[in-house]
């Protein structure tokens, strides 16, 4: 028997000790947003937050989630009410086929939460997402979306994303406690210094992935 909290909801599941957290989420919790890609910790499609840290749920035994807080893509927002991060992915073309998207969102979420109110640099975003493979987008649009959601750029509709970052991970009231450090607003007086290079020309960016 494993007790855990998934997207703020307490669950008790009867599973073999080494059942993968990925399978517990999909089978027992019926949360199929988390995908299995490679099944060996390479692609990041199954990324979830375990006590606030991004992990590959295909490599986590159920017993290591006992007593833990787990957040899946379903915990970031709902179909009717997307989080700012999810909206930025939609508006900036960060999602195409969608298989990598739940894991990308979770890794991006961990980075934004860890960065407090600072907008992570492009290099930081690329490093934080290095364990999430995408075969569609070429990554640039994902990087742009993450930085926009963190308040470091403008979304397609031309409004600063930071204004909408309040709903990142759900409304403040419904936001799990571990999201308390999530960014709210950019510093008054414009973007932080690190955001200034957000829209520099593509040509100056390296081809690193």
């Amino acid at each position: 028997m494993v007790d855990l909290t998934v997207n703020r909801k307490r669950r008790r599941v009867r599973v073999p000790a080494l059942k993968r957290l990925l399978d517990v989420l999909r089978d027992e919790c019926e949360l199929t947003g988390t995908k299995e890609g490679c099944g060996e910790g390479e692609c990041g499609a199954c990324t979830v937050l375990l006590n606030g840290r991004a992990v590959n749920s295909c490599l986590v035994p159920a017993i290591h989630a006992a007593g833990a807080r787990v957040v899946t893509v379903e915990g970031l927002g709902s179909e009717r009410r997307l989080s700012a991060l999810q909206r930025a992915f939609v508006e900036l073309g960060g999602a195409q086929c969608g298989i990598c998207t739940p894991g990308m969102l979770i890794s991006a979420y961990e980075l934004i939460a860890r960065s407090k109110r600072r907008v992570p640099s492009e290099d930081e975003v690329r490093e934080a997402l290095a364990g999430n493979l995408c075969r569609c987008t070429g990554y640039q649009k994902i990087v742009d979306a993450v930085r926009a959601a963190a308040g470091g750029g403008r979304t397609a509709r031309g409004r600063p994303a930071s204004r909408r970052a309040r709903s990142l991970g759900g409304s403040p009231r419904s936001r799990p406690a571990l999201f308390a450090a999530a960014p709210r607003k950019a510093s008054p007086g414009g973007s932080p210094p690190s955001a200034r290079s957000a829209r520099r020309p593509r040509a100056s960016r390296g081809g690193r992935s």
Partner: protein
Amino acid sequence: MKSALSQLEVVRPRTLAQALRALHEPAGERPIPLAGGTDLFVYLNAGTPIGRRFLDLWGLRELRGIRLGPTHATLGALTTFREIREHPGLRRRFPSLVAAASEIGAAQIQNRATLGGNIANASPAGDSLPVLMAHDAVVIARSTRGERAIAFAGLFRGYRDLALEPDELIAAVRLPFAPPGAFPFFRKVGTRRAQSISKVVFSGLIHTGRGGRADLVRLAWGSVAPVTLRAAEAERAILGHVPAAAVDAARAALARDIAPIDDIRSDRAYRMAVAGNVLAQFLRAAARR
């Protein structure tokens, strides 16, 4: 997951003493220690038959924690690479270890993978291992018979063959501080910066004294031999010389120290050339600073 879950059994000790007893007198097959699972679950998911009984260490507080003493740091075996990256004392004292921790897998792996696990997995491509070797690390092994300190230099007897008794558990790693003024270095060469298994991985430590001559040189390599190893001949070619002037001699000597192979990730000629380049890069970086 291709392994039959119903056939797998997990022993879940509450204390280190219980864990050591489970290893010493197993009731049945000796259990395989399980830490962050980032290696073991790759096998289990693929259905590779590695064993049926596992010893879950994850909850053992005795195996956690990073402590900095006056002369060395002690890292519990369950220290994750994320914890290494974020530790201010380690960032100051062991920048090459922090650099290695930052390039192992990616964020998701670093959040789970442990230093003890990287040692126990004993892959010749283990990225933290050359750093530990260059720093003359000592592995603290525990068993029901007590504690034993194993010098890193004598830890790997052969390919994936550790100098550990079957009932011994890696409990901690002791890392002596480098002498003041020594220059630590880490370089991993893989297909890409993250999520790659090294083609060549290197960690060096060098100190220069009078006249800029090297009086301490440690060159530790991974992915170029069946085990992580020190390049003894190359070290001799540098000792007593000004590092930047010893590049050619050291490269020539290195070719006698290492024995890279052709495999799926790279080939012998490439690894030989890259290892020489990395060594040259290290020596020039040491001279520049």
